[in-house]
């Protein structure tokens, strides 16, 4: 697989094709499997993603701690805000939905991770529904997202414990932004700018979940991560270019992650987890629960 997005963009441009096409070809070569098999696996992932969106939107799920759940449905049935009736609001609802399923130990696709699993399905299935885009193109977009994630895994990290939330929902936003731009007809170059624009907006983002559990703020960070992806998509599609190439933004994310204090890397030692309310909720809702065997 590619270790540089710039290299993949160069190959796609030279061959007059898309990033998903070069990514699928590289994967087929690496794994010794036909492209059709890889697309089938991505098709199965898309089915699970849609099931998680639908399951979460019902609104009846709660995490074991009952700290999260039921909020995705509010974006469907709750009072209107300024974005009511737009794909933007629908994407937010879908991001919350998947993450609420995850927190309830339901089945999701970790893309790139479970903690950041809401962003990509929300952006891709939300925009595909809004624009009537067929599944084959969504599957291609998943391949592009996989390419971007693979580059992040090689150059930086996809683990909150290593790189903070910028490596999970931040990477997910970069993947979703790039993938959606291809799905909406953008060029490989625009995909690169969308990725850079989304990832730069999440640089420095810490991983500070209450009690160390993938619940709060993770569920909401998937929604705000999706919002950053949508902003990056809109800017890249408008022809805006980000001066620092995606590869270098990703390298920066890795550097920041490596120097991030351990308190901000999934350990519940800092950030929101260490606030008076964060500590109280963790004590009351998480640790008590564990002691009572819940």
């Amino acid at each position, binding site marked *: *697989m590619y270790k540089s997005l710039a290299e993949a963009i160069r190959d796609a441009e030279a061959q007059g094709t898309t990033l998903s096409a070069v*990514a*699928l070809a590289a*994967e087929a070569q*690496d*794994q*010794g499997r036909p492209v059709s098999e*890889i697309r089938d*696996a*991505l098709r*199965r*992932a898309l089915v*699970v993603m849609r099931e998680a969106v639908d399951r979460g939107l019902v609104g009846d799920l709660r*995490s074991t701690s009952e700290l999260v759940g039921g909020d995705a449905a509010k974006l469907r049935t709750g009072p209107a805000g300024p974005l009511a009736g737009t794909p933007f609001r629908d994407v937010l609802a879908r991001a919350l939905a998947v993450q609420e*399923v*995850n*927190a*309830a*130990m*339901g*089945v*999701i*696709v*970790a*893309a*790139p*991770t*479970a*903690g950041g*699993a809401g962003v*990509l399905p929300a952006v891709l299935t939300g925009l595909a529904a809004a624009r009537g885009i067929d599944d084959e193109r969504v599957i291609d977009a*998943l*391949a592009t*997202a*996989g*390419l971007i*994630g*693979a580059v992040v*895994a*090689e150059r930086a*990290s*996809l*683990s*909150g*414990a*290593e790189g903070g939330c910028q*490596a999970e929902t931040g990477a997910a936003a970069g*993947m979703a932004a790039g993938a959606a731009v291809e799905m909406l007809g953008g060029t490989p170059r625009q995909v690169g700018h969308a990725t850079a624009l989304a990832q730069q907006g999440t640089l420095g983002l810490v991983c500070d979940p209450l*009690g*160390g*559990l*993938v*619940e709060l703020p993770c569920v909401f960070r998937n929604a705000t991560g999706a919002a950053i992806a949508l902003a990056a998509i809109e800017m890249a599609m408008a022809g805006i270019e980000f001066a620092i190439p995606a590869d270098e933004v990703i390298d920066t994310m890795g550097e920041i992650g490596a120097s991030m204090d*351990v308190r901000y*890397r*999934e*350990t*519940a030692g800092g950030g929101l987890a260490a606030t008076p309310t964060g500590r109280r909720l963790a004590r009351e809702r*998480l640790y008590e629960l*564990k002691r009572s065997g819940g």
Partner: protein
Amino acid sequence: MVSLLDIIGPVMVGPSSSHTAGACRLGLLARCLVGGTPERARIELHGSFARTGEGHGTDKALVGGLMGFRPDDERLRTALEIMEREGLDYQFEKTSLGDDAHPNTVRITLERGDRKSQMTGASLGAGRVLVTDIDGYPVEVSGNLHTIVLVANDVKGSVARIAGLLADANCNIATLKLSRKARGGDAFMVIEVDDQPDESVRDAIRALPWVTWAFRLDKVSA
């Protein structure tokens, strides 16, 4: 090498790819060392695994993996109850394996019948794992393919003999890494194969007079 399908995947039970799916895969790899579900296991958690493991379901995922459940198996949710029902003796401890160890590292010491083994491995993120030590030998096993690891005396023709055994077992070699500490000293082989070898392959390799140690680990990625 990172695979697209590791990034868009795995399909898994939540809530954490490194703490739940990755932990489950490490459990699946560890059980291979004793050829099945261990009766006893000491599970030592390091770093983030030690600090936040319980709430992330790391304990359930490791136990589920040791019992042979895969990351998308909904039985992971109740793995600890199943373990008790099956009468398995798995104990958890918190430990420190030093600053160099990856934050999500576990050391598992396990027993099944007369087989005993110890494995250290880390969950690298996005469900990817790396086994770094087996019975005191440094290794690098990702579980992306079926893998044979072995230590042998540095004798002529050893690679050919092993390759022959694998060919007889209908296993195609994908990658082969050979290293040794000194000429005539221990030779270390990590062989990744496309087709799943069974325990008889491990037994045949172990039966070679110049092989001191060999293990077979299953592919655990999607």
